[in-house]
C-alpha cells in the first residue's frame, strides 16, 4: 500500500495539486481519520493507507473543493459513488479536485477481527487471502474475508465510477452481493416481530448524530435535527418516539440519494444497523420505480424527484410484502 502514499507525495511535489486529502492515524491504529496534507513532510510522517481506511473522503470535498487551489482525493469504489452523487447535486467544484481512484479489496473492522478471537492487535497487513495481525501475544492470522466490515461483505460494486487516474485495477458491479437479504428477511416477519426488532436496535441510539455527520448525502447546511424545539436533539427520551422519528426521517431524507456507502453504520458507536433502513428505501424504489443506483452516473433522475403518471398508489403498501399483522 506504499503506492498510495507515493502517489500522494508525487502529486504534491509535481505541483499538480496544492493539497492532498487522505487518511491518518487517529486514537488507535485501526481508527483512521480523514486528513488534509499540505506538505510532503506531513505526508511522509502521517499519511496512512491500510485495511482500515473505511472513511469515505467524498463529503470533505464539499468544503475542500471550494477553497483555493486544487486538492487530490483518494477514492475507493464506494466513495466514488458518493462523489458522483455530490457532483450531481452540485455540491462539489469538480475543477478543483483531482480524483485518484484506488482499487479496493475490502476494508476491515476491528470488531470483526476481535470476533475471530484475536486480541491485543497492534498492527495488521494483508497477505493474499489472509490478514496477518501483530498482537501483544505474537502474530496471528485470520482469513481476510472474516475480518471484513459489514458493508464490505455485501459490497455492491468494486467499480470506481469516476476518476482522473487509477491506482490498481478497476472492478465491477456485483449484482449477487446479497445486500438486500436481511431486508427481505425482516419484511417476511410479522409486524410485531419487526417492531420488537427495531425497538431493540433503535432504543440503543444515543443521538450522537455521528451517522448524520458522516453521511455524504446528509450535507444540508441546516439540518432539521439541529432544532431544540423538536425534542429529537438529545437523548432524554421518554419513550421510543424520538428514535423512531429521527431514524425514519434521516433515512427518508437520503432516500434516492443514499449510495449505500455504509458510512452511517460504520461510525455508529452503538452498532445500529442503519444500512437496513437505507436499503429498505433502495429496495422499495428499485421494485416500485425501476432499478436505480445513486451515484452511478450524472444523468439519471433520482426516484424521488421523478414520477410517472401510472406510478402505484400508496395503498400498495397494504398488500405488498410481509404478512402485515
Amino acid at each position, binding site marked *: 500500500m506504499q503506492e498510495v502514499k507515493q502517489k500522494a507525495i508525487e502529486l504534491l511535489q509535481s505541483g499538480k495539486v496544492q493539497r492532498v486529502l487522505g487518511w491518518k492515524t487517529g486514537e488507535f491504529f485501526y481508527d483512521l481519520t480523514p486528513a488534509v496534507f499540505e506538505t510532503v513532510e506531513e505526508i511522509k510522517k502521517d499519511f496512512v493507507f491500510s485495511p482500515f481506511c473505511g472513511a469515505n473522503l467524498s463529503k470533505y470535498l464539499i468544503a475542500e473543493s471550494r477553497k483555493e487551489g486544487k486538492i487530490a482525493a483518494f477514492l475507493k469504489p464506494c466513495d466514488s459513488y458518493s462523489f458522483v452523487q455530490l457532483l450531481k447535486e452540485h455540491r462539489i467544484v469538480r475543477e478543483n479536485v483531482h480524483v485518484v481512484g484506488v482499487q479496493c479489496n475490502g476494508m476491515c473492522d476491528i470488531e470483526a477481527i476481535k470476533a475471530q478471537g484475536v486480541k491485543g492487535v497492534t498492527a495488521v497487513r494483508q497477505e493474499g487471502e489472509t490478514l496477518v495481525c501483530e498482537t501483544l501475544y505474537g502474530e496471528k492470522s485470520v482469513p481476510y474475508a472474516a475480518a471484513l466490515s459489514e458493508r464490505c461483505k455485501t459490497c455492491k460494486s468494486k467499480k470506481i465510477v469516476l476518476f482522473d487516474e487509477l491506482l490498481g485495477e478497476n472492478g465491477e458491479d456485483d449484482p449477487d452481493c446479497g445486500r438486500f437479504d436481511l431486508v427481505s428477511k425482516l419484511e417476511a416477519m410479522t409486524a410485531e416481530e419487526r*417492531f420488537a426488532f427495531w425497538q431493540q436496535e433503535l432504543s440503543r441510539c444515543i443521538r450522537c448524530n455521528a451517522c448524520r455527520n458522516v453521511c455524504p448525502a446528509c450535507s444540508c447546511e441546516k439540518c432539521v435535527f439541529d432544532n431544540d424545539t423538536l425534542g429529537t436533539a438529545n437523548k432524554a427520551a421518554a419513550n421510543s418516539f424520538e428514535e423512531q422519528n429521527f431514524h*425514519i*426521517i434521516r433515512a427518508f431524507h437520503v432516500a434516492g440519494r443514499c449510495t449505500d456507502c455504509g458510512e452511517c453504520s460504520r461510525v455508529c458507536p452503538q452498532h445500529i444497523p442503519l444500512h437496513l433502513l437505507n436499503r429498505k428505501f433502495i429496495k422499495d424504489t428499485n421494485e416500485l420505480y425501476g432499478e436505480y443506483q445513486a451515484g452511478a452516473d450524472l444523468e439519471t433522475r433520482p426516484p424521488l424527484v421523478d*414520477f410517472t403518471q401510472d*406510478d402505484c398508489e400508496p395503498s400498495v403498501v397494504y398488500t405488498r410484502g410481509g404478512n402485515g399483522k
Partner: protein
Amino acid sequence: MQVNGEFKPKIVAFCCNWCSYAGADLAGNNRLNYPAEVKIIRIPCSCRLNPMFILRAFQRGADGVILCGCHPGDCHYTTGNYYARRRMTLLFSMLDYLGIERERTRVEWVSAAEGAKFAATMNDFVQTVTKLGENRRLEDLRCKK
C-alpha cells in the same frame, strides 16, 4: 382517547386546499355525516406534506393520519401530487417495515366535487382506525395528557 369507556380515535386529515378541503366543505353543505374525530389541516398542495408532519401528528396523539389531495393529473401545481404519491408510498412502506400498523396511514384523492367521497372516505378510515385501537407504537408519552 377513551370517551365513556369507548375508544374514539383521533384522526388528522391533511387536505389540499384546492380539492379535498373544498370537498370537505361540500360534504358539510350537503349535510353528509362524517365523524367529529377527524381534524382537518389545510395544506396548499398534497406535496406540502412533509413526512415529519405525519410523525409529529402521531407524536401528539393522533391514531391515524390521512392525506387527501387532487386526483393525479388534476394538481393545481400540475405535478405536486405525483411527487407526494411516491413519497407517501415509500414512507408508508417504511412505517410498515418498522412494525407500525400500516392501516394507520392512508392517501386518498378527493376532488372538490366529491363531497360524498370525502364523507365516505372519512367514515371508512375512522372505522379502520377504531378497530386498530390506540396508537401505541408511534406515541410520545410526554405529549399524552
